[in-house]
Structures are given as C-alpha cells and as structure tokens.
C-alpha cells in the first residue's frame, strides 16, 4: 500500500499537450477516480503513474519516493487495462499464476493463492480452461484477480467497466467497492462515467483537456463545483446552466439570457455575481432538484415563468422541461401537478444557485 503524489505533471506528444500540469495527492488506501470526457488525458495520466510512459515535466512519487529509475517490472503496480490484456494463449490458471511464477514463488504457494483468488473472483470452475474462452464479464474478473494476486502497492484500473453490459456493470461496481475494502489497497480508477465515479470513489479528480478541474470528495464536488465545467459534468440530470450578460439598473441586477429571457438576481447568488466587478457575462447554475413550484418559500428566491414542454418519467418522479423564451430549464415536478402546455411559475432558490464567470468558467463567490 502506498501514497502517491502527482506533482505538476505534464505530458506532451509533440506539440499536443495531453496532460497539463496536474497535481494530485493520493493518500494510502484511498480510492480515487480520474473522471473526464473521452480524450481528456485519463489514460495518459494512468500510464505515467504506472511508468508505461514518462512525464514530460513533473514527478510522480510513491511514498515520497521517485520511481523514475526503477524498472517497470520492479514497481509492483497492479494495472487493469481498458481491454483487460488477458493472456489468451494461456489457461485461466496460468493467467492468475503469471505474476507469482515470474517471481519464483513456490509451487504449492502458487496453487493455494491461485485457488483462493479464483474463489474470490468466482471463476474457479474455469481454472483449467483457455482464457480465450471466457466471457467479457469473466475476463474482467480475471484481469482484476491476476493483478490483485501479486498484492501490488497500488492498483490502477483503466475504464474497467466500460465494456460490460449494464446489469453486470452495476454488479461489478458494487464488487469493486467491496474488493477495494478487502484489499485495503490504494486504487486509482479511470472512468468517463460520473455516476460510477460518484458512487465508488473516496475522491474524484475531474480532468478536462488535460487540466485538473477539481479534486475532492464526491459530495464536495457535487455541492460545491469550482467551475462551470465541473458543475456541468457532475450530477444527473445535469445542472441547469444558463448564460447571459449581467445588467445593473437602479440597484437591480439582472442576467439577460442569450435566449431572450432574464433572471432577476437576488440574495446570495446576486452577491456572488457582484463579488467580481470585472465580470460582465455570467453563467447561472441551478440543479433540477432545487427548483420548486407552488408557493414561494423564501424572500429572495427568484421567480420565473415558463411553459411545460415535455414531462419525462425518471424513476418515480417526473422531469419537466420548462421553456422560458428560448431557454430551457429542467426541474422535477415535485407537486406532481404539471401538465404539458401549462404556463407555470417556478422558483430558483437563491441559496442553491451558483454563479460562474462565463469567460473563465470560474465559480464566483463560492464558499
């Protein structure tokens, strides 16, 4: 088990910067997710941690120790590849035993550990079969078991669940959490699926175009996104983010939305928008579950009026698409009384609303 410090790491391929000055501290035994859209540099970051690729700049320390001079095979890093990289010419048993055999572990010891791991991953009945005959789901388990059996100092998983079918993915997600607990291992986990990251990780590093956008516990990131990208990326359904120009008239501050509508800012979110006088265009954010209908609940909540375009069932609730001029707001129909075509008032609670600078994407007036 190791702690990992990623210090100002940059990776360039020619002129292209795949990873841009990323720093992440990972404590011993932590489960960290690297989250970001496809092509943002997650795999590249993982490869650098594993030593498959060298950082152009910066350093990666394990227990405060630079492994730059240590050969890849001596780093003792568990790595589960995106496509598993199962040795398809070997049996399941030989796959599991590979990491032990090359270290010249005794035969009976190997047998004991392989059996135990196969049991743990519930692939015992497959041990003698060629690995190429396994289903994708079983390959996934084998890939994890093969890495886990050598008790690596850290465990890296690159999109381990993205090839699985939906049912097994949900199962494996729970399974991974249990495994991480059992192994007590420092784990880094790459995914582009924010739900996966939110439900599994102790901490999430959100990456966009090679840059670290935010690093923190899932709930902190959810409740307190530091920029527009994170606000937009995390949460399902997505946060309403509407862009416009700030206009001040007779002490009233309004956000003139690009779609023609306007938001009369009030309360905390107004303070947030005014916290930086240089900001002229902003982005207003509110999560669908924070919008409410019916009676106004607090003085400085912001009243809007919109037409119900679509009602969509999401589990037991209904998601309403509210059209305000050219702008669409998503909100949960908390009173279960909306009908398509209704022109209804709804409220944006000022305390739950977020303000972003449209140009830099930076959160304004955050805690």
């Amino acid at each position, binding site marked *: 088990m190791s702690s990992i410090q990623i210090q100002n790491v940059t990776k360039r391929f020619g002129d292209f910067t795949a990873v841009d000055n990323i720093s992440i501290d990972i404590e011993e035994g932590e489960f960290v997710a690297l989250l970001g859209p496809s092509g943002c540099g997650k795999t590249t970051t993982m490869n650098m941690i594993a030593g498959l690729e060298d950082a152009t700049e910066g350093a990666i320390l394990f227990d405060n120790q630079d492994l730059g001079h240590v050969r890849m095979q001596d780093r003792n*890093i568990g790595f589960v590849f995106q496509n598993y990289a199962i040795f398809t*010419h070997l049996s399941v048993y030989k796959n599991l035993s590979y990491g032990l055999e090359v270290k010249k572990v005794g035969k009976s010891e190997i047998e004991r550990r392989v059996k135990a791991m196969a049991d743990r991953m519930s692939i015992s009945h497959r041990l003698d079969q060629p690995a190429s005959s396994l289903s994708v789901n079983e390959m996934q388990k084998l890939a994890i078991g093969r890495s886990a059996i050598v008790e690596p100092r850290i465990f890296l998983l690159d999109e381990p669940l993205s090839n699985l079918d939906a049912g097994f993915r949900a199962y494996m997600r729970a399974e991974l959490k249990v495994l991480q607990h059992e192994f007590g291992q420092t784990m880094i986990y790459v995914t582009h699926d924010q739900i996966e990251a939110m439900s599994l990780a102790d901490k999430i590093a959100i990456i966009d175009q090679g840059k670290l956008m935010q690093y923190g516990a899932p709930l902190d990131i959810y409740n307190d996104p530091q920029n527009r990208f994170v606000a937009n990326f995390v949460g399902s359904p997505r946060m309403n983010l509407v862009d416009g120009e700030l206009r001040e008239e007779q002490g009233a501050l309004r956000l003139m939305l690009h779609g023609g509508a306007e938001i009369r800012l009030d309360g905390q979110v107004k303070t947030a928008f005014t916290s930086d006088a240089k900001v002229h265009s902003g982005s207003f954010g509110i999560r669908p579950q924070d919008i409410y209908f019916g009676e106004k609940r607090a003085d400085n909540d912001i009243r809007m009026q919109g037409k119900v375009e679509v009602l969509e069932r999401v589990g037991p609730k209904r998601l309403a698409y509210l059209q305000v001029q050219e702008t669409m707001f998503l909100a949960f129909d908390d009173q279960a009384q909306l009908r398509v075509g209704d022109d209804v008032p709804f409220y944006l609670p000022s305390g739950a609303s977020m303000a972003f600078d449209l140009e830099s994407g930076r959160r304004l007036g955050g805690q």
Partner: protein
Amino acid sequence: MTDQTLTDTTGNADTMGYWQKVARDGPRMGFWFVLPTLLLLLFIVVFPLLMQLYLSFTWWTPLEGIPWYQAWEVFNWGENYWFMITDPRFWGALWRTVLIMIVAVPAQFFLGMALAYLFIDKFPGRKIFYSIMLTPMMIVPAVVGLMFFLLFQGTGPVNDHLGLPAEFSWLTDVNRAMISVIIADIWQWTPLMFLILLAGMLGVPSDQLLAAKLLGGSNWQNFVKIILPRMKTVIIIALVLRAVECFKIFDLVFIMTKGGPGVQTETISVFLYKQTFGDLEWAYVATIGLSILIALSILAVKGLSYMAKK
C-alpha cells in the same frame, strides 16, 4: 444412394456433408470462375510430374535417339531408384544439403529472432536500419555468390582483415569451402527470417506484453512465456520455408565453388545440374528430383500439420 442420404438428413444443412450440399445446390458460381485456371494449373503442374515419373522408370537420355514419349522402349523397372539409393555421390550431395540446412537455418533463426526483438521497440533510425537489414535478401543470389567469391579470395578482404596469408584459401579448402557457403547463405537469408519473425512478433498484442511486465516478468520470462508461444505458427512457417529452400541452394554454391573442391560443396541442386548438363542423365535426374520432392512434401506437411494441431 445419394437420394437416400439426402432424405435421411431431411435437408438439414448443419448435418449435411459438403458434397451433399453441392448435390443439392449445384456448384457455387465461383467454381466456374476458377475452373479455367484450375485446368491450366493442372496441366502445368501435373503434366511435368507425370512425365518425370514416367521417365524415371526408363534408361532414356537425350542421346538415346528416340523421343521422350517413346522412352518405354528402354523401361528399366525402377533400376534408377536402386541406383540412386546406392549412389554415394547422391548421398553426399544430400548430406551436404542437409548440413547447410541444419547449420544455416538455426543460425538464421536465432539471428533473425534476436534482431526482430531489437526492432519491436522504437528507436531513432529504426526505419533506416530496417531497410539496410533487408537488403541482403533483395540481392540476386548469383550476385551474393559473386560477392562472397570475391570476399573469400586468398588475397581478398576477409583474409586481409583477419591478417591471414593469401595461401590460406577458403573456397578451395576441403572444410572451409563449406563454411564459406554457409556464411554466405546465412548472410543472405537471415533478413527473410528477421522479416517473418518481426511480423509475428509485432502481432503479439503490446498491452499483453505490458501487462506481463507490470506483473513483474523479466524481459526474458515474458519473451519465453508470452512472445514465443504466440509466435509458434509464424516460427514453424519460417522454419519450414527456409528448410525447404535450402534444397534449392544453387547460385551461391555454383558461383563460389562450383561444388568443389571435388564434390566437397556439391549440394543436391548442383549435383542435379551436373547430371543434367554434364552427364545428360535425364532419367536419373528425374528420379532424384521426384524423390526429393516427395521427401520434402512429407517434411513440409508434417511440419504444417504439427502447427495446425496446436
């Protein structure tokens, strides 16, 4: 009978044999497309073989004064085969061919494998080295023969470099002539081995190699346990190909030593050449040619079926 089997299987395509399906559906359209070529090939391949078989059972030579198709007049009941089995010159030539094979092919294999292993990683100048590496096999074998003929002259560059006197001869020495020929063959054909093995090696998924490395396997362990087993097919193809080609070795030997000194470097091909154009023993040549063909076919089929089994 055919009707019977057809009704037995009640037209279930899975349990039907190939010919049953053809009987039901008629030959596939592609069959008519390849038919002309097939007939032509049959003529080109089968006709000379039959002719060879026919001649090998006669005393016929072009000096006989009768056309080859009348060779039955000198039919000799397989005496050529008996003569071959008891001909020390034949066995000598065969042994020397096999000797070249068992020395040169493994040497080419190990060198080719080592070079291929160097080339799976990217390094500066890889493309240039790659092109240079492949040059020898592009050169016409006769030219390679000439090159090594010049290199191994008593006053040639080899002796010069090794500081050996001009009397230290390579090509006219009983043992060293063979060594020279083998060296030339290794030089020319290692690149082919390298090329085939590199293709096979690049076919080994790189992420599996990385996985093996990350699991702690040393380069050698990963080579033996991951790369080699995955290359088995390619290795067998390369070895069979080169082994069979050894029997064709002619240009090198003919230009470097003419099979000499004496018959010290006479290979099967050179021997056949001498029999054909020197002694005009065409029926005997047919006998040997056919026998070698059969032996090699068995060898190749055995090798390839071993491969198919794995």
